[in-house]
């Protein structure tokens, strides 16, 4: 039982934590973000597995995580209002080449992040070439270029 309870607790804790930490935390992966992710997964594993290295324990922990994940996805399907609470909503940060400073400050995104995404996805050179820039729920920034 403890394997399942621990699995549930860690899943829920991480779910709430990353909603609080903000979506940019793991959205754009620098080398440091990657290392941070590895360390977090290591700490999570220690908490869930403990010192029980049996296959039974491993399977129960994994099933509890995946099972809860499936459960939440079914719940989101039946109650769409859960989507905004669990995943968040997209946010428009740049309109017609003009960044919305207040929203960018609140979401801790600066112009360089947006320009990086614009270069990466569309090879754009300047902020004026961006029609809309959207901070998506997965932490990525999607860019809609102005029609030439």
């Amino acid at each position, binding site marked *: *039982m*403890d394997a*399942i309870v621990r699995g549930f607790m860690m899943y829920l804790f991480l779910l709430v934590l990353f909603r609080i930490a903000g979506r940019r935390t793991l959205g754009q992966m620098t080398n440091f973000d990657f290392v941070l992710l590895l360390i977090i997964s290591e700490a999570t594993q220690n908490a869930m597995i403990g*010192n*029980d290295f*049996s*296959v039974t*324990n491993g399977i129960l922990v994994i099933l*509890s995580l995946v*099972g809860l994940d499936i459960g939440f996805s079914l719940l989101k399907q039946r109650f769409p209002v859960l989507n905004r609470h669990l995943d968040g909503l997209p946010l428009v940060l740049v309109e017609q080449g003009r960044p919305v400073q207040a929203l960018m400050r609140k979401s801790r995104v600066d112009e360089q992040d947006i320009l990086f995404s614009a270069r990466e996805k569309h090879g754009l050179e300047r902020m004026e070439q961006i029609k809309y820039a959207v901070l998506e729920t997965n932490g990525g920034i999607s860019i809609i270029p102005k029609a030439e």
Partner: protein
Amino acid sequence: MLLGVSLSFIDEEIAHDFRSHMANDLEIQDDLPFQHRHWRLQRVGWWVIACILAAGLLGLFGHHPLSRTTAQTQDGTLLVTYDRFGRATSDAEVILTVTPTEQEEGTFRVWFDSDYLEPCG
């Protein structure tokens, strides 16, 4: 347009959809009947997961207060608390409660059967 008709399923969700392919001019290896069978299998799998988790929460996999049970000697001097279900390559907690008949100081010895200890390694 020729539509493939598949009669191998009775699921009411796709009662209106008897096609075996979606886009006819798309070079794609899709197969709707297979997809529907797969989704049914997936839902069966979800129930299996739910049953396993329920069984674990009820104590069928050990390490659970409900799966602990006791055995006692005739005269009540030795009480053994152990887990009904064990896990391979994992610790198993066995608690021995000794109630001596004489209130004297000294040592007590516990004997373990080799048949019991041998498989434990």
